[in-house]
């Protein structure tokens, strides 16, 4: 364990932890709104470390979906982490052991991945541990705080805070949709399919988890076919 590397990681992880605290606060509100306990919400956040996956998972739980539906939803939505883990594995120092890799894998989130690969030198286990520690604590404690606060809030405030997580989803998609016609196309198609499943009476039997899977797979496949990506993040559109 290298103390200096660990401290370096802690420092880089602190801003991520602050961001996670506010995002998971709104997730905590939704957890309680969905009929789960504070402890269940905290456990979900601690063991999953993923906003989109947990949000979709919560929808499946609320709708009473099957465990298979849960597994497939998580698989599709979180599949992008496989790509990040692959990429991260190339950046790790040769000294990182198999067991240490199993620990690092646990909280390889979008933001932690981005900071880690942006560091530019080969990554040590001490650094990765420091980098992940505060975000994990921030993500879990934010969920607890949000769930605890939601019981105390007046309904008008609760109603307003319900859109916080959706707002963050929009904040991720919109700037990229503006930059790339291909992303705009993919997002618009996903919205159209999702609405079709929701509003067309013949399709109303499709559960919300399955609707997310179908919209995600169909729109991503169409966009990949029409606008294949050249290198990381670059499209032909």
């Amino acid at each position, binding site marked *: 364990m290298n103390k200096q590397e660990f401290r370096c990681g802690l420092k880089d992880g602190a801003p991520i932890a602050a961001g996670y605290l*506010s995002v998971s606060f709104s997730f905590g509100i939704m957890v309680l709104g969905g009929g789960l306990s504070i402890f269940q919400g905290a456990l979900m956040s601690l063991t*999953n470390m993923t906003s*989109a996956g947990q949000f979709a998972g919560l929808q499946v739980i609320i709708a009473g979906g099957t465990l298979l539906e849960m597994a497939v939803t998580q698989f599709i939505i979180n599949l992008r982490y496989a*790509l990040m883990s692959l990429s991260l594995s190339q950046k790790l120092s040769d000294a990182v052991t*198999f067991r240490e890799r199993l620990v690092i894998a646990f909280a390889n989130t979008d933001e932690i991945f981005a900071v880690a690969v942006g560091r530019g030198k080969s990554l040590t286990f001490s650094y990765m541990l420091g980098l992940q520690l505060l975000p994990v604590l921030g993500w879990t404690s934010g969920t607890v705080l949000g769930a605890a606060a939601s019981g105390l809030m007046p309904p008008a405030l609760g109603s307003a805070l319900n859109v916080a997580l*959706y707002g963050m*989803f929009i904040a991720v998609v919109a700037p990229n949709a503006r930059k790339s016609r291909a992303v705009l196309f*993919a997002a618009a198609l996903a919205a159209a399919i999702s609405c079709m499943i929701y509003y067309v009476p013949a399709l109303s039997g499709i559960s919300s988890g399955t609707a997310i899977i179908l919209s995600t797979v169909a729109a991503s496949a169409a966009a990949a076919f029409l606008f294949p990506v050249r290198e990381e993040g670059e499209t032909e559109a």
Partner: protein
Amino acid sequence: MIYLYILVMAAVTYLIRAVPLTVFQKKIENRYIRSFLYYVPYTCLTAMTVPGIFYATRSPVSAAAGALAAAGLAFRGKGLVTVAAGACAAVFVAERILI
């Protein structure tokens, strides 16, 4: 039952992260698969937001106000927390007027 759901979620998510970091360490060469995975975050976040956001508040009208505020701020390149706070504020103000 809820703990079983959480267990499945955690196990699937962990395996997706751990297997490529330990067992397979080859780059994905197939361009179509890489492209598909590139679009997944955008499509899944959008599918979860639309039409879900319109039923998240006490009225679809106030929710629409929140969605518009979020889209406007996000297009201007504002950060996550600013966009989310703007959406909440728009809903709060809209419900003040409506309800």
